[in-house]
């Protein structure tokens, strides 16, 4: 397998502080309402506990990206050296087909520029030998950058509950599921 960078979302560590999402916003200053990275609380139907658990998600830089396949103007390309999916906004005509088609809701519509945009995996930072800003900012190391060609996937889940299963797209994200909360009872003390 060739190099494919992706995110490791460690839901066991995530405390839902939104620092990753805020760091992304601070880095790129997206327009109001445009959010590249979102922190989703797991619904009670999946995680029925008083403790909450979260997935911090952005673009998954899929092996076979729908956005790239459906874009009529070839505004997306996949970098050969690390598999990142990059959107060239200057080519975008704002048809919204990528926004409609991505099952993960990654591309967003910029109402000011009237074009789509999405998480770039901070590829300029990567090229400079630095980490994506979300990874760098997480205070509990709940988001990590991984290379799917080399990473030991023991204990990692490819399609976690609460995350759309799309094997044909093969999203470059892996999860660690949240552990069950520990209930401490008086008689246990």
């Amino acid at each position, binding site marked *: 397998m060739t190099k494919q960078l992706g995110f490791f979302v460690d839901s066991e560590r995530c405390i839902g502080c939104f620092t990753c999402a805020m760091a992304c916003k601070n880095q790129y200053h997206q327009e109001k309402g445009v959010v590249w990275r979102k922190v989703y609380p797991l*619904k009670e139907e*999946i995680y029925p506990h008083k403790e909450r658990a979260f997935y911090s998600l952005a673009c998954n830089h899929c092996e076979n990206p729908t956005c790239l396949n459906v*874009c*009529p*103007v070839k505004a997306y390309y996949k970098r050969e050296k690390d598999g990142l999916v990059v959107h060239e906004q200057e080519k975008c005509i704002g048809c919204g*087909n990528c926004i*409609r088609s991505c099952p993960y*809701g990654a591309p967003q519509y910029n109402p000011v520029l*009237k074009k789509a945009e999405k998480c770039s995996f901070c590829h300029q930072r990567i090229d400079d030998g630095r980490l994506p800003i979300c990874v760098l900012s997480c205070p509990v190391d709940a988001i990590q950058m991984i290379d799917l060609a080399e990473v030991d996937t023991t204990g990692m889940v490819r399609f976690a509950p609460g995350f*759309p299963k799309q094997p044909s797209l093969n999203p470059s994200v892996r999860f660690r599921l949240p552990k069950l909360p520990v209930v401490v009872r008086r008689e246990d003390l």
Partner: protein
Amino acid sequence: MNTYETPLILFTVLSQLSIGLVAMSTLRQIAGPDIEPNKLRMEWLVAGGVLLAGMIASIFHLGHPGGMVQAITNLGSAWLSREALGTGVFLALLVAGVIIMREKTSLGLIVVTALVGLLVIFSMGMTYSPPSFPAMNNVLPFVFFFITAMLLGASVGVLFSSDTTLPMVSRILTVSLIVGLVVYLIVPCIWLSGGEIMRQTGEQWLASPLYWGRIVIGLALPLAIIWTLKKTPGWLWVIILVGELLGRAVFFANTVHTATNMGGIY
């Protein structure tokens, strides 16, 4: 996340009307050589005008309408590019037909145009069946669009039919109305037994006044009118068009996207 996407509603419905109209003229031409060139040219002129109106409407859904020509850049993988190119070719064939068929009709050109129209509907079906909409990530968009083409093509085609071919076109319309009614009533009920997003789509469709407006105005009422009058009135297409526009609004606004349930059950 979803909106009514008015330009796309107009584009898809009007282009399917145009393709349906050409399909009807083709069937009439094959069934019996009773089409006068002038009548056929007028029919194709209407089809071309309607298609052009739809194409103009579609431009307004682009953030940058000036880039519309670039929409055919990615023919290798984007069905939207293929749809855009196919629509352009279909319009060119319509224009060629209006110019060429002054003295006599050309069955070859008519059949080729109808086949290109069918391919355009197929590419539309592929464009609107992305993985993000599980309820539509299958053959259904093509089926819906084909039904629209048959309904609108036959109901408008009645205006261009001679006494000999009118019964055939009326039968096509009646059968299309019955098929459309069955399909549109059954499909949301099947979705209810599907995965979470599919089930939500079924619930949203069934709870939408637009959906029931589409069923009653666009399908049941025209059938009742045909049944009562024992003929297909020339104004019936207006009611059917309203029904199709309502149905397409449901298609765009009430089909649920997977990203809306992130963190929940799929």
